[in-house]
């Protein structure tokens, strides 16, 4: 018997959420296959952010969340969050300069595709606009090369040109790394542009498939 514990018949590649409960919400069960984007919309207060926080294990939760068959509880919390990375709606910065927030400086090409020169790492955070902070927060998030992105309205503070740049950049990153994303957005056209399926979260917390 020992040493022969059964694994789930199909250890799926991607993110599996099973019976996830947190803060009196749920249970939620769904799967996001590797290489795909799970689009999520819904009015504010419906709990979209809380769902992302629970998946990245920042709030107490019950149930099972697994990435490529590895459970969140099997990894140290910090390691899990580097793989399953949450982008908050508003990014905060705690050092004076941009570069101090990076453990490894991303490739130059990343900076360019979001409209920055490499010298941006020497910039003072206090000089950044809201939109610049948002785009840099995306680079900051990707520095550990996460396989699952939990994006909380990643383009809310951006103008049209930058929205397009961010959409292209993230979809290219996912394709290159066979990654996946849960993409929270109020813009159903955006979810269509990035090729996501579309779920809506209702006020009670129920999730319904729209497309």
């Amino acid at each position, binding site marked *: 018997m020992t040493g022969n514990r059964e694994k789930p018949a199909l250890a799926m590649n991607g993110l599996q959420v099973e019976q996830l409960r947190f803060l009196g919400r749920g249970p939620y069960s769904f799967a996001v296959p590797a290489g795909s984007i799970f689009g999520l919309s819904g009015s504010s207060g419906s709990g979209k952010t809380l769902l992302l926080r629970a998946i*990245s*294990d*920042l*709030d*107490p939760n019950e149930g099972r969340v697994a990435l490529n068959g590895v459970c969140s509880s099997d990894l*140290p*919390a*910090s*390691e899990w*969050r*580097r793989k399953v*990375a*949450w982008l*908050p709606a508003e*990014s*905060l910065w*705690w050092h004076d300069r941009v570069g101090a927030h990076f453990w490894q400086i991303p490739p130059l090409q990343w900076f360019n595709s979001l409209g920055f020169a490499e010298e941006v790492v020497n910039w003072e955070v206090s000089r950044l606009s809201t939109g610049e902070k948002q785009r840099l927060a995306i680079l*900051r*998030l990707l520095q*550990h090369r996460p396989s699952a992105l939990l994006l909380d309205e990643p383009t809310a503070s951006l103008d049209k040109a930058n929205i397009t740049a961010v959409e292209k950049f993230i979809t290219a990153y996912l394709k290159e790394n066979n990654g996946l994303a849960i993409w929270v957005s109020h813009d159903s056209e955006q979810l269509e542009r990035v090729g996501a399926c579309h779920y809506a979260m209702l006020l009670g917390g129920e999730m319904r498939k729209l497309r």
Partner: protein
Amino acid sequence: MNVIPLGVFELSLASLLVLLLAWLSFRHRLEIERPLLIAALRTTVQLSLIGLVLNSVFATVNFWLVLLIWALMLAAAGYEVMSRQKVKVKGPARFMIGASSMMLSSFSIMVLILALVIKVEPWYSPRYAIPILGMLLGNTMNGVALAMNTFSTLAWNRRAVIEQRLALGQPSGEAIEDIWRESVRTGLIPIINSMAAAGLVSLPGMMTGQILAGNTATDAVRYQILIMFMISSGTGFGVILSLWLMRRRMFDTRDRLRMRDSFHVG
């Protein structure tokens, strides 16, 4: 060793200064006269009472009696630390964090000094053991209260930043390291400053007391250096221990920030 005795008359003369200050505060609506007068009254009553008690305690050498007094001193210090927190830990830990870390650091240093450095016989002789613990606790209490208050207040105010650092995959210790460092420093700076200024700007209280009581200055200096080393290390260990215990309350085993569950403001 002849000390000029102080009588009630001399003390009331000195108290006029405090009354003058209170009158000034009243006139200019500084609103500090009430706490000032209450504190002055407390100092008089508490010290007079402890003087009576100590006289009889010094006359006997009873370990259990000394232990009882230590425990009372520790409880008072623990209560004082607890009441100086703006962002408070919930539950009995509010008292226990400060009290246990002060106990570990102050008691162990006191025993070390009494038994190995001063070499009193027996090591718990109340004439040494009680004032030394008092001096240790008094300073450690200040450092621990300052450091704990800084730590919990900063962590509370910056909890959103801490969470984003956790979200980026930093372990809890790393996510809070700048707050930790700032708090340890805040707790230790007063004692470091007073060590640096000792002899140049200030003659520390104990040394002044000894000199006033007629001891030679060189004897007083040696004791003062010993006391300085004791209270700085005691404060340091107490501060680090209390912050370590507090940090364990801030995060759970999955490195989630639990400020709202384990702390409250007010």
